[in-house]
């Protein structure tokens, strides 16, 4: 009778000891092997309509397996909503991690700091196709001068406007930001049921072009780290321009202060706004809305006539995980997936803008719709600071808070941008 109870006690005690003994987990990280055969696991993002992406990828994979005897490729499409958790989990547990991942380009610096991505600077430099990669896309895979992946596609925003409303009111597409703001207010005055230009207090990537167009910067590189420049004079001018669009004469603060990018595009697509700042990736949503056939797209104007406001170069990259046991194979597959041929096919299938300037030119000939977006990229798109601190700044909503503070009248531009700059500097300092 007693023996089993004793044994149980011992087992329990042992279990408790092992449980309490372990400190929080830390994973090993780097792999030592570089096997030339075996299974490569790839995680790509799941698109809303995933079939066309699968077809393009299947083709690449079939060709890759033919060229590399003994290599097998398993592709898994992961939901975009839970990607952050999945990828963090992959960094923590190398045993179940994939060899290659698709990731959002604003995450590059954080993933590098987390120690998850492999440095492929040498391979990227020796890859002939990489010569045509546009500078903004190249910046999006570069951290501290080293390359951590290959750009997969870019996304960029431009100005959507309602041709029918503009014709009716005798307006022309704005050529400067001052004209843009004046046009928006004219529309609102004549058609009070519409927002002139739909803007959002939480729409960071719609607001950044205003800051950049006025010569402002988010942050400037200082040695290995960054220093916030959001409270600089030029940046403040941009913030003033953007926040002047909130009000009863364009987009009432009570409604627009809390809007994000999707909400502004939805407002435009449903016919509630005469203009909106939308991406090439918003095209399908607008086409599906009430304004189909009644709109056009031009690059978002800069401060001087004919200039284009620098846009944020969003998009995704493909990277090799540091924990891969098939480094050479994984890098080859990365080149195949992010190569010119695949990007051209992805554009045809899904409208993803290629990251190579020459492939993009060909794309514009096939689909004139993307021309304004390509012009925007050609005028020089910008990227967020390549620091892991950016991840924290983004997650703690520093910039939306700043815009909302100004828009709701809580703080003036100088105070709000000063506070935001302090928070950014703290995040950059913590990221080291």
């Amino acid at each position, binding site marked *: *009778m*007693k023996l*089993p*109870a004793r*044994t*149980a*006690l011992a*087992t*329990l005690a042992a*279990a*408790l000891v092992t*449980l*309490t003994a372990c*400190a*929080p*987990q*830390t*994973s*090993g*990280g780097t792999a030592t092997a570089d096997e030339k055969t075996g299974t490569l696991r790839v995680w790509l993002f799941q698109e809303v309509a995933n079939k066309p992406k699968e077809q393009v990828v299947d083709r690449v994979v079939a060709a890759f397996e033919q060229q590399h005897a003994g290599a097998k490729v398993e592709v898994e499409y992961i939901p975009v909503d839970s990607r952050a958790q999945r990828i*963090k989990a992959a*960094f*923590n547990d190398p045993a179940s991690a994939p060899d290659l991942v698709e990731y959002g380009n604003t995450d590059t610096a*954080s993933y590098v*700091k*987390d*120690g*998850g991505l492999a440095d492929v600077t040498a391979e990227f430099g020796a890859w002939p196709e990489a010569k045509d990669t546009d500078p903004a896309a190249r910046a999006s895979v570069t951290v501290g001068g080293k390359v951590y992946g290959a750009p997969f596609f870019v996304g960029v925003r431009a100005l959507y406007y309602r041709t029918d409303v503009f014709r009716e009111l005798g307006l022309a597409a704005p050529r400067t930001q001052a004209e843009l703001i004046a046009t928006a207010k004219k529309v609102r005055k004549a058609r009070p049921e519409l927002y002139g230009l739909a803007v959002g*207090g*939480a729409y960071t990537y719609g607001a950044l072009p205003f800051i950049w167009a006025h010569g402002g910067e988010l942050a400037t590189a200082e040695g290995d780290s960054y220093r916030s420049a959001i409270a600089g004079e030029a940046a403040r001018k941009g913030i003033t321009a953007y926040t002047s669009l909130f009000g009863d004469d364009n987009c*009432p*603060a*009570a*409604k627009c*202060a*809390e809007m*994000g990018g999707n909400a502004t595009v939805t407002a435009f697509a449903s016919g509630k706004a005469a203009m909106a700042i939308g991406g090439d990736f918003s095209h399908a949503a607008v086409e599906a809305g009430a304004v189909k056939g009644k709109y056009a797209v031009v690059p978002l104007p800069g401060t001087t006539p004919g200039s284009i406001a620098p846009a944020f170069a969003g998009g995704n990259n493909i990277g090799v995980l540091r924990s891969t046991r098939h480094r050479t194979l994984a890098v080859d597959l990365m080149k195949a997936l992010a190569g010119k041929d695949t990007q051209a096919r992805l554009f045809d299938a899904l409208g993803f803008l290629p990251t190579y300037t020459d492939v993009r030119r060909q794309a514009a000939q096939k689909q004139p719709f993307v021309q304004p977006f390509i012009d925007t990229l050609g005028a020089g798109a910008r990227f967020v600071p390549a620091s*892991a601190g950016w*991840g*924290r700044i983004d*997650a*703690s*909503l520093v910039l*939306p*808070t700043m815009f*909302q*503070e100004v828009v*709701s009248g*809580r703080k003036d531009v100088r105070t709000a941008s000063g506070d935001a700059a302090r928070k950014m500097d703290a995040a950059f300092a913590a990221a080291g």
Partner: protein
Amino acid sequence: MTLTATRPGKGSGAARPRRSAPRRTGRGTGRRGGRRAGSAWTPWLYLLPALAVLGGLLVYPLYQLGLISFLEYTQAQVSGGRPTSFRGFGNYTDLFSDPQFRQVLLATVLFAAACVVATLAVGCALAVLLTRVRALPRLALMLAALGAWATPAVTGSTVWVFLFDPDHGPVNRLLGLGDFSWTYGRYSAFALVLMEVVWCSFPFVMVTVYAGIRAVPAEVLEAAALDGASPWRTWRSVTAPMLRPVLVVVTIQSIIWDFKIFTQIYVMTGGGGIAGQNLVLNVYAYQKAFASSQYSLGSAIGVVMLLILLAVTLVHLRLLRGQGEEER
């Protein structure tokens, strides 16, 4: 885990007859003194399965929470990019020197207090109403309350946001508020969330208090009536004291729930409201711990919340016990 869970269970079931055995031997011959020492441990042996489960599910996570709150532990440490280091009270000093944290803490305490008071008031009032109405309206009220209770928080919050939408919401149209935006102002946004919180948590209070009222013996109420007590006097001097244990439970439950509010704020104010005006501690901790991967700072916030809730609960229990003894 299955091994450790079943083994002691089997042992305790089969060992029951043994309990009388040592007593007999002790009284009889007095030999094998070691037996008595063994019997002192016996209750603990029986408690072990429960303790093991509690330890695994409660103590261990709390231990980890506390430990992480003293470390520098971000995503870089988790995935092995950088070594984990000990920071002492560094995370706590960071936290309390952050003016936003202090402001969020204050907002959370006030908001939770308002929610608890409102929930208890509505719940108790409706419970009393339930005892006064006929069967059919009672059934209707019960069903409506259970419906609100059964609605998942995310669904409930989304529906409320839609109901109060400035452009398409029926509430503004009914009240003639035009395109008034509830989530724009700090207080109106908190008020909106408060209404939703009360809506989804009053049924628990109502049902529990109703059950408590029903359990009050009819003779006592009859005696009060014979003594000529008014309804208010009856409630204050007879029903409420007899309901005290029930009220303690619902109050503490409500405090804990309302202090930990997350879903309603996160969904209804879009993750903390305009410029973070509607942040509460849990949403703030989420921003710090998960969205920006500062797990150690998030843990420190968790520990602070735990301590506050423990303190509130202890003080509340203490006060109630004191009152009870005075009256007796």
